[in-house]
């Protein structure tokens, strides 16, 4: 029996916590998946002259736009981070950077993508009741908490698991 894994460096069948690299890739892929699904539905309706289109729903149209903007920004910021790392130097006896600028693209864009997706999605299914607002707010906070923890452990030179 051959088992395959959909995650990096976890092909032995054991359950592992996500590393920062896996976490960031997951967040970005969620954004790309969302863009693909909404784009397919909208283009299918346009190409086939459908009776109505997903583009008629303002909130999902806005979600698509926000997700595109965030992923575009992710592209720009990752390129900037790449350049800054290449231009930086590590002084003797230092194993960490003085600022956390290299991690800014994860926190500001990828997490924002997932937050928008979850917020709009839950509102569409469950409505905007205050009781459910507590759940979604806590859940979004959990995502931010995990991201911050992974960034801190990476920055501090620990294994980010």
């Amino acid at each position, binding site marked *: *029996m051959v*088992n*395959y*894994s*959909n*995650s990096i460096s*976890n092909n032995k*069948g054991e*359950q*592992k*916590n*996500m590393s920062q690299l896996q976490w960031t890739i*997951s*967040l970005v*892929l*969620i954004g790309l*998946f*969302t863009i693909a*699904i*909404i784009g*397919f*539905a909208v283009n*299918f*309706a346009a190409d*086939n*002259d*459908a*009776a*109505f*289109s*997903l583009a*008629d*729903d303002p909130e*999902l149209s806005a979600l698509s736009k926000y997700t595109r903007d965030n992923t575009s920004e992710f592209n720009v910021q990752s390129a900037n981070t790449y350049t800054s790392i290449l231009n930086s130097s590590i002084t003797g006896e230092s194993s960490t950077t003085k600022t956390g600028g290299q991690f800014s693209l994860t926190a500001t864009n990828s997490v924002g993508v*997932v937050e928008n*997706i*979850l917020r*709009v*999605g839950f509102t*569409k*299914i469950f409505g905007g009741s205050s009781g459910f607002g507590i759940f979604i707010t806590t859940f979004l906070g959990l995502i931010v908490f995990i991201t911050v923890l992974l960034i801190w452990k990476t920055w501090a030179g620990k294994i980010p698991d």
Partner: protein
Amino acid sequence: MTLYTLPNATTPDSILVQIVAAEPAFTPLLLLFTFMVIFLGGIGRQKARLGTADYSMWAVIASIAMLLLSVVLSLVTGIIQLDWLVIVVVVTIFSGVWFFMSQKQSEV
């Protein structure tokens, strides 16, 4: 006594529209049926074959199949409402979130 008004089968072009007009729950239940057949069937077969199943992967596959069916149904007025199409898209996206966040063994 009939439970609902039977559609006029002499004009089959609009028979689906007439069925939905008589029973508005037809479309969402058809979509739910499509989702569940693929989701539960896929999980069952994968478990029989491997002893384990990737729930999130089957949720994505079933959601995409449901999405394809719903966008085809949206070509004609009166079969599916925009609200249901939006919900199907949201369920598909959430399945993707579950899949990409999942650390479960996968065959993808």
